[in-house]
């Protein structure tokens, strides 16, 4: 069986096991993505770890994606929830990869933590919380991880400016480091464009 056939077999097996929890599945660039509903994530993940035909023993990565400006330049509007949490799973025993995606609403960005299934989720979930403000229910220690102590906001959201809100400098008079509003103007060197397929060919 080649890679695509193995993925299709996996796709059918997951659809059998998870059933109504699956919103959609897709094979793209030789990778399988399944979109789950947010309340079923934990149950399905447990099956993906312990199920004999799955055995996804390693959680390679967890990250969040903010779809706020997705295809904005093409004049399209994103009709799904704003955030997605993406899990990359790997089975070392069966040598297969799987991507699981869960969409979460901006108004309540909460998903269940999978830390009790894969310990490696610990820091990845902290990072997604820090950078995107996604809350992971059941995470024992959901602190900021990459940004500074006392940082305000979630910097990887699309509505957070690249240059940030505050800058830091040493104040001679006060004799300490202070924060002040940023003095640099945001600038775009290369504009973002979406060209149609076969542009210029």
């Amino acid at each position, binding site marked *: 069986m080649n890679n695509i056939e193995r993925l299709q077999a996996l796709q059918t097996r997951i659809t059998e096991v998870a059933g109504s929890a699956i919103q959609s599945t897709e094979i793209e660039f030789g990778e399988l993505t399944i979109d789950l509903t947010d309340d079923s994530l934990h149950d399905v993940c447990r099956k993906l770890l312990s199920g004999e035909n799955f055995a996804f023993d390693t959680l390679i990565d967890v990250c969040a*994606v903010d779809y706020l400006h997705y295809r904005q330049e093409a004049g399209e509007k994103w009709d799904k929830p704003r955030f997605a949490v993406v899990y990359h799973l790997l089975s070392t025993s069966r040598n297969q990869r799987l991507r699981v995606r869960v969409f979460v609403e901006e108004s309540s960005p909460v998903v269940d933590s999978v830390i009790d299934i894969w310990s490696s989720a610990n820091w990845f979930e902290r990072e997604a919380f820090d950078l995107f403000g996604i809350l992971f229910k059941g995470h024992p220690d959901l602190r900021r991880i990459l940004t500074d102590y006392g940082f305000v906001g979630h910097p990887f959201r699309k509505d957070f400016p690249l240059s940030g809100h505050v800058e830091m400098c040493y104040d001679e008079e006060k004799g300490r480091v202070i924060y002040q509003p940023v003095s640099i103007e945001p600038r775009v060197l290369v504009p973002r464009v979406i060209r149609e397929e076969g542009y*210029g060919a």
Partner: protein
Amino acid sequence: MPEIRNYTMNFGPQHPAAHGVLRLVLELDGEVIQRADPHIGLLHRATEKLAESKPYNQSIGYMDRLDYVSMMSNEHAYVLAIEKMLGVEVPLRAQYIRVMFDEITRILNHLLWLGTHGLDIGAMTMFLYCFREREDLMDIYEAVSGARLHATYYRPGGVYRDLPDRMSQYEPSKWHDQKAVDRMNENRQGSLLDFIWDFTERFPAHVDEYETLLTDNRIWKQRTVDIGIVSPERARNLGFTGPMLRASGIEWDLRKKQPYEVYDRLDFDIPVGTHGDNYDRYLVRIEEFRQSNRIIRQCVEWLRNNHGAVMVEDHKIVPPKRESMKHDMEALIHHFKLFTEGFCVPQGQAYAAVEHPKGEFGIYLVSDGANKPYRLKIRAPGFAHLSAMDEMSNGHMLADVVAIIGTLDIVFGEIDR
């Protein structure tokens, strides 16, 4: 009875054994670690967000600066992700060049790891030995890209240019007279491939030197054997990859299991540990020196006998030659479009991973069809390894913390991103 309380101690961020800017908050019971809480992010530069604001090609340089001791491997994952989405087939010669430089990078990385890990736990000589060999390897980097560290050599569609026919040579100065310079230039008379070949001839003997100093050394074994044991089940659950996972006894290597480029045509072995402690991780990495050396030799032999293009010819992705730009209108347009706007990548999402010297280094790319990534997520192996710090150091002595940090092979450029 006086009240006995745990002692909380701060370690770093400015500590030579913290390998950069790691701050550890350690909770101690006497000299035994109860809890280790790494505070990271002191080197956070928001690489992923910066990449969202730049055309694809302009972010290759950022990739070098992630794990700044294995530069080209980072680039490799990034260009693989882009090529996957563009559907580009890279010329065979470029694939061999990439594999060769990946392995050179692996040796570079492991040399730095061995030197600093040795220095941390009392083997000063290792540092000097390892940096002696690193010098030659960085000259190879320089010969091919012009930069000793941040090469920006891999491009979507191949590599920036072919290997040079001539190796740069030393010139006499007030520190080195003609005689000394002649001796230093002895192995630089031929092409770059000759110089690499000469290195691979010498290198196994150097690895033997390291092993003579360390492998049966009583002090080295006392500091590493049975320290930081991770069972195979835990290693997988903690997201370990690369030498960290292999030392725990799991034979997992992307170069063998999910081969990319030309790894399936090359002959090499995967070293696997049995015990999962610091000493096994040391032995695995030492064996990787020898295996990488083997791969480099096979690549050099192939590259000597086979010539051809090192970049695809598609000028929608790769800029045309500068000379042709001067007289060909089409080339001028392509050149202008590529450098002012870049190329657009089809809509979708893709994940590409390479066997980085530290583990699985992956790039998750979400594109909405624009000339810049919509979202770029860097999966850094060191991030998962360092998150296991608490579990690995629990119950060990304070001095072992340094040995465990060393064995994790962490570099803050990739952890903080």
